[in-house]
């Protein structure tokens, strides 16, 4: 996808508790194991639960800044629709989007002050006509555990990044909870199918 000398920037966003930290750690491990230099940055803090979460993952032959400059994300990976749209300004022209259709109301919405914004998928599509939009939560529930939604999306991501499939599978196995390896592998596979050929 890119000359070796360049840096690939993946911005992963979502809501606390959705597993963005896990998916970003798996991606980072895959990139590192592939022999690339990798930097990953996220902010922990105030939000125990329910706050916005973002993780910057950068890999290539040489990476300096741990932060993706605005407008230079190659891939925007979002596990919640509104959060994915929030970070849209970070996506470069021609960048790819992988978005879950899941909606989690922020406080002003659940308290009835504002509606959940409409037309978000269209907004994403305007930036990336090949947008991969998946009802990851529904898929995960279908597989038997809502918590694997992030891994479904990660499966889709694996289709557009140039890493060895076995490496992905190894890292998923290694990094998800021991009791849930099988269902996570299924979720990953399902995500690959949904991303298209």
């Amino acid at each position, binding site marked *: 996808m890119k000359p070796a000398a360049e840096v690939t920037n993946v911005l992963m966003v979502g809501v606390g508790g959705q597993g963005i930290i896990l998916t970003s750690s798996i991606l980072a491990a895959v990139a*590192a194991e592939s022999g690339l230099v*990798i930097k990953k940055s996220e902010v922990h803090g105030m939000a125990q639960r329910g706050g916005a979460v973002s993780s910057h993952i950068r890999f290539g032959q040489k990476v300096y800044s741990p932060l993706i400059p605005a407008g230079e994300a190659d891939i925007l990976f979002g596990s919640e629709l509104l959060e994915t749209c929030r970070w849209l300004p970070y996506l470069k022209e021609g960048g790819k989007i992988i978005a879950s259709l899941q909606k989690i109301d922020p406080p002003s919405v*659940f308290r009835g002050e504002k509606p959940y914004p409409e037309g978000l998928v269209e907004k994403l599509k305007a930036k990336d006509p090949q947008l991969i939009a998946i009802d990851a939560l529904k898929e995960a529930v279908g597989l038997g555990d809502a918590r694997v939604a992030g891994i479904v999306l990660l499966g889709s991501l694996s289709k557009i990044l140039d890493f060895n499939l076995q490496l992905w599978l190894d890292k998923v196995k290694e990094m998800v909870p021991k009791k849930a390896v099988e269902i996570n592998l299924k979720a990953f596979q399902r995500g690959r199918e949904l991303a298209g050929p």
Partner: protein
Amino acid sequence: MRKLLSGNEAVARGAWEAGVEVATAYPGTPSTEIVQALAGYPEVNAQWSVNEKVALEVASGAGYAGARSLCAMKHVGLNVASDPLFTLSYTGIQGGLVVVTADDPNLYSSQNEQDNRHYARAAKLPMLEPSDSDEARRFSKTAFALSEKYDCPVLLRLTTRISHGESLTELEERKMGPVLKKFDRNPSKYVMLPGYARPRHPLVEERMNRLKEFAETFPENRIEMGDKKIGIVSSGVAYQYGREAFPDASFLKLGMVWPLPEKLVKKFAGQVEKLFVVEELDPFLEDNLRMMGLDPVGKEVFPLCGELSPELVKQGVSGKGSVREINFDQAIPQRPPILCPGCPHRGVFHILKKLKVFTCGDIGCYTLAAQPPLNALHTCLCMGAGIGQSFGMEKALGKDARVVAVIGDSTFYHSGITALADIVYNRGKGTVLILDNLTTAMTGRQGHPGSGLDIYGQPSPVVELEKLVLGLGVKRVTVVNPYDLPLLEKVIQEEMEADEPSVIIARSACVLIPQFKGVRKKPVRVDREKCDGCKICLQLMCPALTWEAKTEPGKKRKGYARIDPLQCTGCEICLQVCNEAAICREDQ
């Protein structure tokens, strides 16, 4: 072997490789994971201390006895620990002592944005600043060696992006330091009576001169010559931003930010056409370069506040408005952190708001109660400040002033005890609410002296809150269930009216710790026939309570409250707040 580690994990790894034996900390973002990681190494005796001052005292005691020790804290923690730090600079140590300060530019989880490089200069101590995880590991090791060679604590400064950023790190074996463990009976070195301390001061100054000489040849202070048109002096994550923005420029990369290598800096300045200092927060390097007689470009083009970024560096150096404006879509609602569903703090703030009292707050999850719609916490200054401030307000406004102090359990152990003693001693009548959720919740549920759990998750002796408070001389001590709103209201009213100090301990486990299991009940539900859409329950800001807009002919209400049974913990605070009895238990 290389491994992907966060800066915090890498500091821990470096300390372990250096043979660290004792590690202490009070949890604080972004530093918490350092000593948490050290607790995972069996050779290390790690602990959560009651506060940063005690943490440093314990670590330095180990250092006096010859063990290598590490003490970690967030930037404001060093304010608390500064008292021992400044005089440790005089006494020195035996075993290496590394003091880690993790600063928080942009205040991701802090009450200010102070730049702790000033402490190095003020306390006359060397300070190292890594710019990625592998440097964090290496500098952590180097710091122990320097500490022993120069007989002083060494400061290791991180910032949020270094602490929580991950990059590949080399791993090396553990190797113990050369110092023997023993009592070192040497009063003129360790007893800082004026007569002993006075002759130590010149030794400190002499040490700093030797460290200045060392800095000139320290390999982590290095010139990276590139295009000579632009010369950038930088350190830490700012160096990475500078490199990202100007990969071909010349850099003086400083691994040691105090004391500074004057000759090296001047040599670099003489080799480049235009000299810049790229640093986050204060013009610390810049001011010192000016004192060397240099005239770098710094804060005139870079911001004093917040984090830097490659874009900001590019804009500052090139003088062009090249920062890509990030136009976040204003139509997208914000997602601020809020109290969890079932949080035991929620009801307390509902009652305080109802009683219209002025609430001197403190630092913890409960600080979130300051935000709308709760609007029920009116000050938050620093750890433990609320108790003393409430007493000051009582002094200023008279004993009838309707003011209370609210403080968490961990924060009370950290810095609240002395303030409460002050109220008792000085005949105050203050009312202090200790919100005891049995953990240090906001930083990720660490143990504290009242929690019964140590850093390893093992049972530990409990410093009992009630007995502690009684021992301080408070006669009116009440323990309440924070989910019982009528009781809470009655007790707060009564205690505020009392003409002597009182403590109300509102005790119930944080919803995120295992003890909450015994508290959790079945979710409650909304009876749609009874709900009149008044939204009073939504004022509680509970994520399980949502609004469903729906207008119906002949009805005044514009919708219903709705409860998400997956999120609801059955705390029943909303049930008690509802005036229409529209919220009921599942079986009703």
